């Protein structure tokens, strides 16, 4: 997607919440990203190291938890893994499936240090 703008938004979020918690340094970030969310991790961490220089998040580590994609049949409600070959529900044969997880993209938590005096 837009790894540089995502990195910038993440930094802005992290610094705001670190400040709110009275911390002086951000050491780690925990992102939750769906399997179907178009995000390239190596590109994100490449930008991350550069844009955090000179900030209180400099040197912090980004960890990404990927959430597997899951689908559900709209007609019978059966939950299923994405079925790319047939695109239909194995129980009732319906072709109407919707994604129930796998498009997440959020900052779950940050690790911080220090106390503002």
């Amino acid at each position: 997607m837009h790894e540089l703008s995502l990195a910038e938004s993440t930094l802005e979020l992290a610094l705001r919440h670190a400040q709110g918690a009275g911390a002086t340094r951000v050491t780690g970030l925990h992102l939750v990203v769906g399997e179907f969310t178009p995000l390239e991790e190596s590109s994100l961490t490449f930008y991350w190291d550069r844009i955090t220089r000179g900030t209180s998040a400099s040197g912090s580590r980004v960890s990404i938890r990927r959430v597997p994609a899951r689908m559900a049949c709209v007609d019978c409600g059966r939950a299923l893994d994405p079925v790319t070959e047939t695109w239909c529900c194995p129980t009732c044969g319906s072709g109407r499936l919707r994604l129930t997880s796998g498009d997440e993209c959020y900052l779950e938590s940050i690790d911080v240090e220090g106390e503002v005096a």
Partner: protein
Amino acid sequence: MSRRVEIVEDILSANDHLAAENLARLEAAGVFSVNLMASPGAGKTTLIEQTISQLRPRLRLAVIDGDLATSLDADRAAAAGAEAVQINTGGQCHLDAVMVRRGLEALDLSRIDLLLVENVGNLVCPSSFDLGTHRRVLIASVPEGDDKPYKYPGSYRAIDALVLNKIDLLPHVRFDVDTFRRGVEILNPGVRFFLMSCTTGEGLTAWLEWLEAEVGERRAEAVT
């Protein structure tokens, strides 16, 4: 000693907050708004021209036009009779909520019934950025091929209505409407679907009726 701070906030939340503000502003003014997305050449501007010229006698229309450079599209919308604002994205491949806010500031919303936002021609990035419009519409076209829902799922999922344009070319192009529709149904069950040709005018009436009904609802809500 490090400690953990729980957050759980969407990474694009800054954009989403602004989009919510845009929507509130449109709601307050009783304006119905549509974000039109498509690949380059699918017929966004032509559909906008047709919509303006057909609805102009009954509705007051405005267009916010997003493009990398030039005001060619906004000029066409203005020539067709709508108030038009050009937003040059300076190379950015999509509109975001900040740019649309700029567009809204340039318009007198009290004098508008229907706002069409023409996104940058691109099947990937626009779908990630909510603009705050009431509806999101994707315009696909026959020459693009019937496999596009399968190849660009993000764009086909994040929409409320789909226009399949250039159906007058179906006899000349290998395009299976059922294959296309099946892909769309998988990604977005029950999505509103318009088969259309802006060249022959086929299917245009259903599209215009839908827009007019939505505008009517917005007006009724703004009055009550």
